[in-house]
């Protein structure tokens, strides 16, 4: 299927976000940004600190609201989509609840949705299998390594089968080896679950390796500097050594370095 034929999972139109509006420390975080994410797409947002990429993600998740413009998620206002639990979220800090076991962490959203205890337990076991943490359900998060904690966070985000996954630098705190491993895992999970992923990252190779499209953002005010399509096909260990991979990495790097050329395209 051609990407353009798919329904839109996220549609942000002319979104502007001003923090501390009317105060001396007013900041224009996003200036007239439009983004559309197709169903089942893997889209990355990349840019330097302060480019508004996390703000963009939080707007999509309706954790904050635009000063101007509209955000639709699965065709609904973002707030409605949040209440309908259309998306799952993962952050840079795994954000696990220390006081809940691994299994109870994965069960948390299900518990809030009123699932029965046995259904919850069964689902959590399935999800822990999916992220390859069989048998760790009874442990407490602080007994796990950073990579394992992040996998629990992903299992939790996907536990209620949301159609969209919003990820804010989820692998940012991991070492390089664990990080590459987690990227492969995420692609496998994405492949197995038909989820739309919007992924915020600082890392160029990470964005290129994972995504179908990379949105390059520029700071002050946050704007979209370029949209880089990536088509690496089936990704494996050799992908990171391939010419196409390096080409795309270079394209993203150039876009990050260039000031906005106004076309929004760099190809």
């Amino acid at each position, binding site marked *: 299927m051609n990407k353009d034929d798919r329904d839109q999972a996220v549609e942000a139109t002319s979104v502007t976000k001003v923090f501390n509006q009317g105060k001396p420390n007013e900041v224009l975080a996003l200036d007239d940004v439009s983004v559309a994410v197709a169903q089942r797409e893997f889209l990355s947002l990349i840019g330097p600190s302060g480019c508004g990429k996390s703000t963009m993600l939080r707007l999509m998740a309706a954790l904050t609201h635009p000063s101007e413009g509209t955000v639709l998620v699965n065709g609904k206002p973002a707030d409605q989509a949040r209440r309908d639990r259309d998306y799952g979220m993962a952050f840079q*800090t795994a954000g696990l*609840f*220390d006081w809940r076991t691994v299994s109870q962490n994965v069960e948390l959203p299900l518990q*809030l949705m009123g699932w029965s205890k046995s259904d919850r337990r069964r689902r959590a076991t399935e999800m822990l299998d999916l992220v390859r943490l069989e048998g760790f359900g009874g442990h407490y998060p602080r007994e796990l390594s950073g990579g394992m904690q992040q996998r629990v966070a992903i299992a939790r985000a996907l536990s209620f089968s949301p159609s969209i996954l919003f990820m804010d630098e989820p692998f940012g705190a991991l070492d390089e080896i664990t990080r590459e491993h987690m990227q492969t895992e995420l692609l496998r999970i994405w492949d197995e679950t038909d989820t739309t992923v919007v992924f915020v990252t600082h890392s160029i190779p990470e964005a290129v390796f994972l995504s179908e499209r990379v949105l390059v953002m520029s700071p002050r005010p946050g704007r979209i500097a370029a949209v880089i399509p990536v088509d690496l096909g089936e990704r494996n260990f050799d992908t990171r050594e391939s010419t196409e991979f390096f080409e795309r990495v270079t394209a993203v790097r150039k876009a990050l370095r260039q000031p906005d050329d106004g076309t929004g395209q760099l190809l």
Partner: protein
Amino acid sequence: MTERLRSVSPPLVVGIGGLLAWELVLGVVQPKGFVLPAPSAILASLIENQAVIVTAVQSTGFVVITGLLFGVTVGVLAALAVSRFRLADETITPLAVAVSAIPIIALAPIFNAWFGLTSPRSNQLVVTLLVFFPIFINTTRGLTDTDPDQIDLMRSYGASRWQITKEVRIPSAMPFFFTALKIAVALAVIAAIVSEYFGGRQDALGPLIVQNAGFARFAAAWAAVLAGSLIGIGLYALARLAERLAMPWQEAVNAGVDD
């Protein structure tokens, strides 16, 4: 088990060694009894006055425990209100700070006038007021000092404010609460005994200490002080036990699990 023994033995060795040194030095120097009775004399007095001391411990213990329960309950409820409603924060917090600035034990004689000289109510009120502040301040801090990602996560699930309080704020506040509780236990014992110097039940530890010291029975006075510290130690141990039961995750150490 050996691990446990190792953690218990140093304080035990120092404690017993200290008592022995105390006993020996007094045997050599032989000061007058009012300066410092020997540990053996205090122990002998404790056994000799067993019946009176047990009654006194029950009497003071009642004040300590009920006062603690009131103070902790009010402190936690106030903390919940303050962390939830801005209006409550703006009213309760300055009042609590003002109350904490009052030398509360100094109010004991005034409370005696309110409740009657031999009523334990005045002692309970002193304990309650003294316990309230550390519990209130620390629990409030714990309830508000939460991981913003966890709050965002709960919001992303469409969780209600009460669900956020129950699943995130209260568990986050637990370590703060129990730290405050352990401080409050020691404060409660001090508050009860000192307020008993001014009034309250006459069979309690406070009057026992005052009377024995007044009649130069220093070993007996010390025995009563010892009984008071046993109340404190007992309650501290209970608080520690409650802490471990309430927060099993705190016991979970990094078991060396890795990718």
